[in-house]
């Protein structure tokens, strides 16, 4: 049994933002619930109000246009993203990261935005979004601001979001469409598991980026690499950027070793 809370499902955007302005501090947003309800059950979070974002008008759209890029909404589930052929064609790295997230029925509920606002160091979507230069459109009653994902995460489970704000849209820029890339996630088992380390590598227009999860307090981006850079220099850049810890899943040294291993493999595999 979950501890008591009220449930609200506003349908209008203005009504939703007003509710957040009023109750943001003691409320939590519900999208897929695959983290939130587990946290409430475990007593980690104790909101007095849970606000369902899925019924807000326009909060479930997933769209693409050559001018605006790919727009992802709070209601967009991981499987919505995976079922979209256009996403698979234009952003194969997003599809690959999404596919590695949890199990099928969790992917039916878990959302892309939920996976990043939780700011877990082991987020599966963050490495792809960081590599692709995605931006967060953050809204509140006070107005709207845009934050690139490279500035979005502030620490373990911490982001730039204020209690009255919602990440209303992710923009994956059209300029990143066609980027080649791949994702490697180390797990304890073949089936669904949290990542021990995750490494995404993206190549486009002579440039190369790495997005790495579970190896620092936040998912991290390593930018400014040139396609064709030597293996040693890319590995050195990755080693310098990460700061893994030892925990119940594995040791710090193993994480360092596997990041290095995945970087080397991806350099060969991503043509």
């Amino acid at each position, binding site marked *: *049994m*979950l*501890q*008591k*809370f*009220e*449930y609200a*499902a506003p349908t209008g955007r203005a009504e939703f933002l007003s509710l957040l302005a009023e109750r943001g501090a003691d409320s939590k947003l*519900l999208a*897929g*619930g*695959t983290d939130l*309800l*587990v946290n*409430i*059950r*475990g007593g980690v979070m104790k909101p007095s109000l*849970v606000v*369902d974002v*899925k019924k807000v008008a326009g909060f479930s759209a997933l769209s693409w246009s050559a001018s605006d890029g790919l727009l992802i909404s709070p209601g967009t589930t991981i*499987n919505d993203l995976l079922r979209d052929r256009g996403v698979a064609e234009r952003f194969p790295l997003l599809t690959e990261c999404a596919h590695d997230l*949890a*199990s*099928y*029925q*969790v992917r*039916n*509920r878990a959302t892309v935005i939920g996976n990043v606002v939780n700011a877990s160091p082991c987020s599966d979507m963050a490495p792809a979004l960081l590599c692709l230069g995605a931006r967060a459109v953050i809204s509140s009653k006070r107005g709207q601001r845009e934050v690139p994902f490279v500035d979005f995460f502030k620490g373990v489970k911490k982001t730039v979001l204020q209690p009255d704000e919602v990440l209303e849209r992710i923009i994956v820029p059209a300029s990143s469409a066609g980027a080649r890339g791949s994702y490697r996630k180390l797990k304890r088992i*073949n*089936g*669904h598991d949290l990542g021990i380390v995750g490494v995404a590598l993206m190549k486009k227009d002579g440039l190369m980026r790495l997005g790495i999860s579970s190896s620092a307090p936040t998912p991290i981006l390593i930018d400014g690499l040139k396609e064709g850079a030597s293996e040693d220099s890319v590995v050195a850049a990755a080693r310098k950027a990460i700061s893994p810890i030892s925990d119940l899943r594995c040791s710090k040294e193993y994480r360092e070793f596997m990041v290095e291993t995945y970087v080397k493999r991806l350099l060969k595999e991503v043509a």
Partner: protein
Amino acid sequence: MMRITVNVNGNSYARDIEGHETLLRFLREDLGLTGTKEGCGAGECGACTVFMNGRTVNSCMVLAAEADGCTIETIEGEARDGKLSAIQEAFDRNHAVQCGYCTGGMVMSVRELLHRNPKPTIDEIKEGIEGNFCRCTGYQQIIEAVLDASGQLVPANKGELKYA
């Protein structure tokens, strides 16, 4: 308290619920449909898997309030007119049920898998049921049942599936 209307296995129910009540609890305690089980309560084990508007979900991580206006299908709706479904018959034939605790959720995931992929490979079956834990069978018989239900079980190979 709030009132929700939910269609479960073809029957419409209107009930008063609390905001913090899960769909799982609603199905089991309010409607008495105890075929859906609680295992971990955290989305790991899949014993609580049901269909919500045609997609499988872990009902322990869905609020009953979210199901307002939705169509839910549970294991109780799998057999029709007293006859087991093809998936249930295949589970029966292949001894894919031991203690039975995971079976309701497992059958839901298999139905979803065969709906989107009528001839899954062994690897695709493993992926399709990765969110459903079975602590009895070691999965061998379940995988055989899915191969059987999809018309792919070769009798000569029974019991000798190669695990990658």
